[in-house]
């Protein structure tokens, strides 16, 4: 593993804004507040912020729920990076937990009735449909998930 998760990997996040998180669900509001402040600073449209907030929350809930079994929490590292590229707002979520690629998970099949609907499973479906970039790689022992939303077509 690199000394610090989220080190520059040539994917457009070098020198941008970043935030380190503890592996606890109660970090979610801090992550959401961090992203909202950046969106306000950069004048991101409301629809772009909504999609990135949703993607960030769904991704972090997966990481916080499954990436760090109890014995792995002491060495857990989670880092968020934000970058605004031409026409695109992007987030990178890096963690050194159990390898997990959400982009390869199939969508849940939407139920025809409340009785048939299964509880849960819509997080990855929402990320895949709302985001314009949803990509994953496992590098140097770290999960790297990138979420991006185009600035011109978010509506």
């Amino acid at each position, binding site marked *: 593993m690199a000394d610090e998760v989220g080190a520059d990997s040539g994917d457009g996040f070098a020198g941008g804004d970043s935030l380190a998180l503890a592996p606890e*669900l*109660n970090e*979610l*509001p801090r992550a*959401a507040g961090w992203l909202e402040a950046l969106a306000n600073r950069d004048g991101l449209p*409301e*629809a772009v912020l*909504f999609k990135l*907030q*949703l993607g960030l*929350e*769904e991704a972090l*809930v997966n990481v916080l729920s499954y990436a760090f079994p109890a014995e792995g929490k002491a060495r857990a590292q989670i880092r968020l990076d934000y970058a605004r590229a031409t026409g695109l707002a992007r987030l990178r979520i890096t963690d050194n937990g159990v390898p997990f690629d959400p982009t390869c998970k199939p969508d849940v099949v*939407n*139920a*025809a*009735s*409340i*009785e048939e*609907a299964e*509880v*849960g*499973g*819509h*997080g990855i*479906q*929402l990320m895949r*449909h*709302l985001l314009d970039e949803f990509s994953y790689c496992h590098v140097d022992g770290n999960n790297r998930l990138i979420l991006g939303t185009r600035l011109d077509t978010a509506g």
Partner: protein
Amino acid sequence: MQIDSEQQDDHTVVRVKGRLDTVHAKTFEASLCDTIRDVPGAIVIDMSQVDYIASSGLRSLLIAGKQMKAAQRDLSLSGLQPHVREVFDISGFATIFRIV
């Protein structure tokens, strides 16, 4: 998050204000289940002041929906904001819930 309920002629209106996210979904779910248990008849959830919903919020709504269906009571949702409506469309919840 703020949750209020109001008894009207033949149904109860539950008004929700804030974010239906992972942090607040359990509180919302518990409040809704209390209302279902304590108040008879149909329930309308007024979502007009909900500006954000994540899959955790959908989960809470589905649990409430299943309880109401099992009790053969009507549950409907009103006032969905555009972003919330989009989440409902993608997840299929716009089809399985009655939206007024």
